[in-house]
């Protein structure tokens, strides 16, 4: 005869009224774990995109370039005129003419190091940085047109905006991915909870017979699924974080992909996910349980 040691028959937790086994158990844990694993990467993507957007924005923000294309005999004159104009323009913090070597280094990625670019009619570039208050770009353009017809102001807006937009969209994609992962997890846990409720019809019948209220019965399933989801999600968070840790470290050559990770306090964020998973499981199971119980006498 099968026996269990029983010290106090009234001292068991309410979630023990639900049998511990069943496919819904591992399905809930597995789903939570897998979804959290994916969510860690979505979170890393979102945070990395955010950092990238800020880096691109700050790198290009507050700087501008003036390009002077003029005949050789007027180049020095126009450069001096532009520098003079800039020194008197409100909102300009610094301005300086780039050397030929600096211009050459800028062109090297496209033209290669061996091309004798000294022979080419290169424009003179003037790098300017603006103050926090900024300057009137349109006003500056008009004055440049009057005093140095060959000077063109490039305030980087047309480069910066698409890049920042792209990074922002990547961040949005990460957030959207996390929302979809959360919704998918809620759906899977709801299915698992419904399966568990159907498989435990006799348990529910017995509980109703002895006077259990719906909230007690639902609570027994909710606690069970919440614990399973939390445990599975915690494992997924640990594995996901290890996966992010295993990515190559950040370096200049690697570009964006090597920057996919967390920094500082953000390393704690993956471990917030199990609590969110537990909350999602709690709400999904509670909804499924009350819907099922309302259909029973």
């Amino acid at each position: 005869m099968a026996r269990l040691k029983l010290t106090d028959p009234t001292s068991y937790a309410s979630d023990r009224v639900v049998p511990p086994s069943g496919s819904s158990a591992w399905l809930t844990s597995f789903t939570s774990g897998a979804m959290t694993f994916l969510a860690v990467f979505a979170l890393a993507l979102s945070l990395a995109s955010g950092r990238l957007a800020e880096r691109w924005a700050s790198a290009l923000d507050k700087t501008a370039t003036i390009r002077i294309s003029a005949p050789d005999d007027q180049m020095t004159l126009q450069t001096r005129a532009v520098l003079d104009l800039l020194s008197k323009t409100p909102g300009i913090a610094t301005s300086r003419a780039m050397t030929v070597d600096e211009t050459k280094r800028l062109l090297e990625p496209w033209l290669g190091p061996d091309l004798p670019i000294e022979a080419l009619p290169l424009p003179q570039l003037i790098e300017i940085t603006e103050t926090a208050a900024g300057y009137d770009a349109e006003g500056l353009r008009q004055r440049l047109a009057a005093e140095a017809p060959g000077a063109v102001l490039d305030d980087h807006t047309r480069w910066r905006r698409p890049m920042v937009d792209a990074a922002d969209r990547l961040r949005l994609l990460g957030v959207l991915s996390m929302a979809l992962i959360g919704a998918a997890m809620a759906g899977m846990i709801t299915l698992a909870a419904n399966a568990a409720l159907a498989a435990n019809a006799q348990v529910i019948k017995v509980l109703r017979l002895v006077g259990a209220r719906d909230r007690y019965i639902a609570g027994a399933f909710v606690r069970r699924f919440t614990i399973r989801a939390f445990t599975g999600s915690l494992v997924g968070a640990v594995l996901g974080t290890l996966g992010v840790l295993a990515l190559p470290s950040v370096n200049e050559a690697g570009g964006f992909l090597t920057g996919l990770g967390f920094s500082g306090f953000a390393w704690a964020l993956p471990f917030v996910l199990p609590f969110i998973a537990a909350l999602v499981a709690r709400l999904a199971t509670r909804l499924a349980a009350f819907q099922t119980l309302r259909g029973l006498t």
Partner: protein
Amino acid sequence: MIAFENAAYSYGGGELLSEVTLKLAPGSFHFLTGPSGSGKSTFLKLCYAELAPTSGRAMIFDRDVKTLTRDQIALTRRRIGVVHQDCQFLDHLPVAANVALPLVVAGKAADASDVKDLMSWVGLDHVADALPPSMSGGERQRAALARAIIMGPDVILADEPTGNVDWEMSMRLLQLLTELNKMGKTVLIATHDMNLIRQAKSLVSARVLRISKRRIQLAGADL
């Protein structure tokens, strides 16, 4: 305790019970007889609000069943102990935990020794730690009875409680139920076993209700 006023119950287009008007007075002992499929189980379900009459009224503890919320039905069932022929348990919990289940779901503190005393009263103290599937039919019936009375209910309903046990065990269960009746509990036993009813004559003053042609009638004089 429990009263019906011209109550009827229909299911799937057919009427299973009609024109039921009766009262189960406090401390009374009733048998409910009738052939298989006559509606005995349906009537018992009406008595503990698992079903509600499709017409007429069913009053349990002076409250119309149709006006009860799901929570109120649950609270009502705590005052009614039910024993089924196919007594159902939580098979993964030991029998003593099953017996104590009504206390646990009601959030009531109970002394473990009270549960053991009750198990001893129904003769199950030797199997307190056993799982229900490993128990015999008689043991399961007695465990179901112990579970039904652990909350100290006002009413005990038993649906063919002796259907799966031998005559000796039937007498044992009948004796337990009559003892409970002598403690002031209202008892209603649905059975088609006329020998059981005859044997009860020597133990208790019981009345017999008979279901015939969907109607419930008093079968005659007290046994």
